[in-house]
């Protein structure tokens, strides 16, 4: 297929001095460059968060281990959770959204390019602020050290009484700052999708990727704001003598939990919806069929968005909210399983009757389907409040949410990396290394997270730096730790593949996958202006219509 799109050759830029090129990157407002900045930032923090996880797992490899002190361990799990959620998964998803949304809807950039840049740098600064907490040396009173209050920072552990020094403040401020960045990005995504679609692309004709990110952005606005409010309240308590969470003055520790989880639960849907978006773009292309049930997928997404705002207290079943309140949150949580299950069935139906090609992106998405199914089902188990009274705050919960975030989100994300890498870099990755990454990571993931459920069932709580022998937890913890090294190997292969292919890979062309959405109609990588002329579309798969003029989608939609 020849391309008429005109691309400015990039060779001349390679000869400008490095300072000029760096300056261009730092001052860019181009959505594609900001997207890549988000992604690289996230990959750096993925390595850091991964090291933190490795330290945790080495400490827990056997009972009464002394690899690190309890103080260091408590900082490790706090930093691991906070880093992974706020400075790895959110940025990388914003990065893909920023890069792809304008291209998929036929626009030249996001609605507010400067707001886009501001949001990125706020997020970036938040991460640096969090890690600046390490600079304060141990023993310098008040100088701070990494926060050790857990990523959900329950009150009153975070009050000045129990968290002396400034480590908690670094946690609070880092999230406050990056929260403004998240809200800015969310506003930008919504404005872009609602206002910048190319002619003919009604909301009913835009890619599911756009729909899922639209709902995600709505959730960010409604969820991150309560966290912002709670952080302000915490700062008022810590610095202005306020009593929001001061139980000695009649304040409520439970109120922090409510506010945090009103953020915390929709947050996990913020994380998973873009993963659904990746799957919804990749699975159809590699099954050679359109997504099954587009309207139902949209409806299910919107339903998930709404219901997700009403389930938060399933994180608080053990707190003592009373039987009636517990019962309400059981039903709301179970309800959200229905649209989520519908999505799995629609992906299954997309593959059904297709011609599946097992390229690396598809391998990761197939694993995503199996793993997300399992993760969702352990979630249903946890939604049963009495069962939660046993399983909550144990390693079963840790296994569940890592199954979602690693087994679901990270796998779909790897699929997305391989799928869109040719578009972003213009080069093809090594399929052999891609498959090696897949198998290494799959083995490691299952070793670690399948077996992690068992200590939870045997009574092992979370956030403990060591454990007693004789509880039956030892062997399982050993297996869990071994899996980490396979995952690490997989990630190293992945990064090596990206780097090597970026510089030495074969040219990919504009449409290496024979796909159907607008980003594949322009060059790889796209020119700064994205499209030589703004396209106009008549169906959900404009490139299918062009490639099959005798049988366009517009006839059937």
């Amino acid at each position, binding site marked *: 297929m020849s391309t008429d799109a005109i691309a400015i050759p990039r060779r001349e830029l390679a000869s400008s001095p490095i300072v000029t090129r760096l300056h261009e990157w730092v001052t860019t407002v181009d959505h594609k460059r900001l997207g890549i900045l988000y992604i690289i930032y996230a990959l750096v923090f993925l390595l850091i968060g991964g090291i933190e996880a490795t330290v945790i797992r080495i400490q827990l490899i056997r009972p009464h281990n002394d690899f690190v002190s*309890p*103080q260091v361990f*408590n900082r490790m799990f706090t930093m691991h959770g906070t880093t992974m959620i706020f400075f790895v998964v959110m940025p990388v998803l914003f990065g893909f959204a920023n890069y792809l949304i304008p291209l998929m809807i036929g626009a030249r950039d996001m609605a507010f390019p400067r707001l886009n840049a501001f949001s990125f740098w706020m997020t970036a600064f938040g991460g640096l602020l969090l890690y600046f907490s390490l600079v304060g040396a141990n023993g310098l009173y008040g100088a701070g050290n990494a926060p*050790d209050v857990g990523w959900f920072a*329950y009150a*009153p*552990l975070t009050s000045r009484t*129990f968290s002396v020094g400034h480590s908690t403040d670094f946690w609070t401020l880092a999230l406050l700052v990056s929260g403004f960045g998240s809200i800015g990005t969310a506003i930008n995504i919504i404005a872009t999708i609602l206002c910048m679609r190319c002619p003919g692309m009604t909301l009913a004709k835009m890619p599911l990727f756009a729909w899922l990110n639209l709902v995600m952005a709505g959730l960010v606005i409604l969820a991150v704001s309560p966290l912002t409010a709670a952080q302000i309240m915490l700062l008022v308590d810590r610095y202005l003598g306020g009593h929001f969470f001061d*139980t000695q003055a009649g304040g*409520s*520790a439970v109120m922090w939990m409510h506010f945090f989880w009103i953020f915390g639960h929709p947050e996990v849907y913020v994380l998973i919806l873009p993963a659904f978006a990746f799957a919804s773009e990749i699975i159809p292309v590699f099954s*050679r*069929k*359109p997504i*099954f*049930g587009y309207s*139902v997928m949209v409806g299910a997404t919107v339903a998930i968005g709404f219901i997700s705002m009403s389930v938060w207290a399933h994180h608080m079943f*053990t*707190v*003592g909210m*009373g*039987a009636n309140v*517990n*019962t309400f949150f*059981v*039903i709301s949580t*179970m*309800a959200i399983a*229905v649209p989520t*299950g*519908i999505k799995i069935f629609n992906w*299954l*139906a997309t*593959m*059904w*009757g*297709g*011609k*599946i090609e097992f390229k690396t992106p598809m391998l990761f998405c197939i694993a995503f389907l*199996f793993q997300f*199914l399992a993760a969702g*089902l352990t979630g*249903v*188990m946890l939604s*049963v409040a*009495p*069962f939660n*009274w046993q399983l909550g705050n*144990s390693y079963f919960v840790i296994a569940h949410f890592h199954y979602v975030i690693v087994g679901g989100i990270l796998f779909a994300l790897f699929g997305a990396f391989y799928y869109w890498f040719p578009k972003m870099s213009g080069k093809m990755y090594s399929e052999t290394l891609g498959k090696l990454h897949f198998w290494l990571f799959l083995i490691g993931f299952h070793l670690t997270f399948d077996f992690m459920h068992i200590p939870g*069932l*045997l*009574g092992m*709580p*979370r*956030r*403990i730096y060591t454990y007693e022998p*004789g*509880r*039956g937890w030892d062997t399982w913890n050993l297996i869990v730790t071994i899996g980490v090294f396979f995952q690490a190997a997989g990630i190293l292969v992945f990064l090596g593949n990206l780097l090597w292919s970026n510089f030495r890979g074969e040219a990919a062309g504009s449409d290496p996958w024979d796909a159907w959405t607008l980003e594949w109609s322009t060059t790889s990588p796209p020119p700064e202006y994205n499209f030589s002329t703004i396209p106009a579309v008549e169906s959900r798969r404009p490139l299918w219509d062009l490639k099959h003029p005798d049988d366009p*989608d517009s006839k059937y939609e």
Partner: protein
Amino acid sequence: MQSQGSQILVLVCCSATAFADAASPFRPTNIFAPASTPAKSIFGLSLFVLAVVGAIFIVVFTLLLYSVVKFRKRRNDDGREPPQVYGSNQVELAWTVIPVLIVVALFMATARVIATVQKVSMPGNAIAVTAIGHQFWWEYRYPALGVVTANELHVPVSDPGHPTPTFIKLLSADTDHSFWVPRLAGKTDLIPNHPNSMWIDPQETGLYLGQCAQYCGTQHAKMLLRIYVQSRDDFDRWIQAQRQPVSVSATASQGQRIFETTACINCHTVAGTAANGRFGPDLTHLMSRDTIAAGAASNTAENLRLWILNPNAIKPGSLMPAMELNDQELDALTAYLETLR
């Protein structure tokens, strides 16, 4: 194929027995080995939930596996696109209605057990205990029986025919904690300014283990729980022993003098003496306990001495300060504590 199948069967059976093996001391905190009504109600519900969830998993897993195998692109593919199917309203309806029905069934079963466990009022013959969570130890008070102790809870066994449950009121002196003894009940949190309550009616005597299940600071990991379920007679005898103040000798021993003149009495209580501090555990009957430091070490003279000398050697980050005593003072003090039976 055959041997693989039987291998799998053996594996499944082993796992099942491994989980159900309640009496084995090897798994004292197994949630699938309930010995008290709340834990048993949860266990029954969990089997139902596991069955439903397991069935769903097997069905969908099989369908997914089938689809990636059956609909893979063959080597001799003709290069044409497969039939482009956009959706089907009937199918969508089917796989909406069935999950809704499953959810309704799960919900009804769950609501019933929530009520069974949480909508229970304390009967007249129940033992009332108040548990107060501290960083990083458990305070227990039996208000009606006039007993105060720490870290090791004693309750009477409950005959299912004539239950004598123990109702525990849960309070906190500092941050959030959680009381989790898996074989007896689900966990309930101890939150300052938010009293909670739970109940247990253990049906077999013995020692039940657990630990704090809500991150409460540096030594959250070693805030262990030990519940001694005893026959009614043994329990009554224990209560009687706990109610006695210590016998104070006419001339206070050197160890007792050290205890009362160092900062010990600021935090600890020894009933019948000048020591009535509340920040640390009540030591009146310290030697009646098997462990010290909330289960972090066994209660031997050597450990006791080490604990006073350098708590960080046993539980780094605990709130007991190192008392900076010399060897001779330590020996005397330990000897005194050893008299607190």
